[in-house]
């Protein structure tokens, strides 16, 4: 029997709006397998998102879904979670949504260590608006607003999250569909703020302009350039150059925000 994704999908909403070969469909399937694998009750499950291609995801999932304004996914998620801490809140968005316009909410959610799972779909570009460079677009890459190649430096989203205080930080790619599913599960189970950065191909906005191969080629690229964290730590700086580590990159025990608050003000 093939996997029954339909259980968590809203009837009649598929096909989704994503372009042919967009990596986001792969992520959506991993998310569904993760929440299904954890046996999560759809009534207690909340997805929030901002604006962008990635942020269209919640519309397809049969849960409590909140498609907010650009960058503000985590702000809304914080309100929902504080009002009803018993809900499982997954906040997601693109690299632009979460780390450009939404960067402040991202670092503060990390700092607070509020028990929200944050999924950053990193396709190295502003997909929805037609391919402008984002804070993660590689140096020298072409985007509609970097006709001479990108001059800007890049965020390492995972390092940013760690620097800001997140207590669980992981990275995966659409090539690693099954490990990604496991990381998402771990992130959801982690008590505190958890970040999973997921590298995904955007053939329309990024691939075309950067003479990257087909959608499949972008997936192969992810495979070729990602290195498991365990192995990464053994590599020299030269060996690491141009590659990125995947897996759980950081995990620590730290007081969760609402628990700490409730204990402090006498609510628990």
């Amino acid at each position: 029997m093939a996997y029954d994704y339909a259980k968590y999908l809203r009837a009649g909403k598929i096909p989704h709006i994503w372009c042919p070969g967009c990596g986001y469909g792969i992520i959506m399937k991993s998310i569904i397998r993760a929440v299904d694998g954890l046996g999560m009750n759809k009534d207690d499950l909340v997805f929030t998102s901002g604006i962008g291609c990635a942020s269209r995801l919640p519309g397809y999932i049969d849960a409590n879904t909140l498609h907010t304004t650009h960058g503000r996914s985590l702000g809304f998620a914080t309100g929902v979670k504080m009002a009803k801490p018993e809900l499982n809140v997954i906040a997601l968005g693109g690299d632009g949504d979460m780390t450009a316009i939404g960067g402040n909410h991202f670092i503060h959610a990390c700092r607070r260590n509020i028990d929200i799972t944050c999924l950053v779909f990193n396709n190295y570009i502003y997909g929805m608006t037609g391919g402008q460079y984002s804070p993660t677009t590689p140096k020298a890459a072409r985007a509609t607003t970097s006709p001479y190649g990108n001059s800007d430096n890049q965020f390492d989203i995972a390092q940013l999250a760690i620097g800001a205080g997140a207590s669980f930080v992981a990275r995966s790619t659409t090539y690693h569909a099954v490990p990604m599913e496991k990381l998402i599960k771990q992130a959801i189970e982690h008590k505190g703020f958890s970040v999973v950065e997921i590298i995904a191909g955007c053939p329309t906005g990024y691939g075309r302009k950067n003479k990257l191969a087909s959608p499949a080629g972008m997936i192969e690229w992810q495979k070729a350039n990602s290195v498991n964290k365990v192995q990464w730590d053994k590599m020299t700086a030269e060996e690491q150059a141009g590659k990125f580590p995947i897996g759980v990159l950081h995990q620590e025990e730290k007081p969760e925000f609402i628990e700490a608050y409730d204990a402090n003000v006498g609510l628990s």
Partner: protein
Amino acid sequence: MAKAEKIEIYVNLCKGCEICVELCPVDALEMKDFKAAVKDLDKCIACMQCELRCPDFAIEVYKQ
């Protein structure tokens, strides 16, 4: 080696991205009229790569 009993491709969902075709390790799939199609079911080793990575819920592999 595992085998597939059936590979279901939903052409109404398939967007023709060729991911399944290009990532199939044994070349069991092909493109036909801009959609994915089974080229040779016998070749299939039921590795599930195609199903896992199809972004559009368009391909399902049933193991034997």
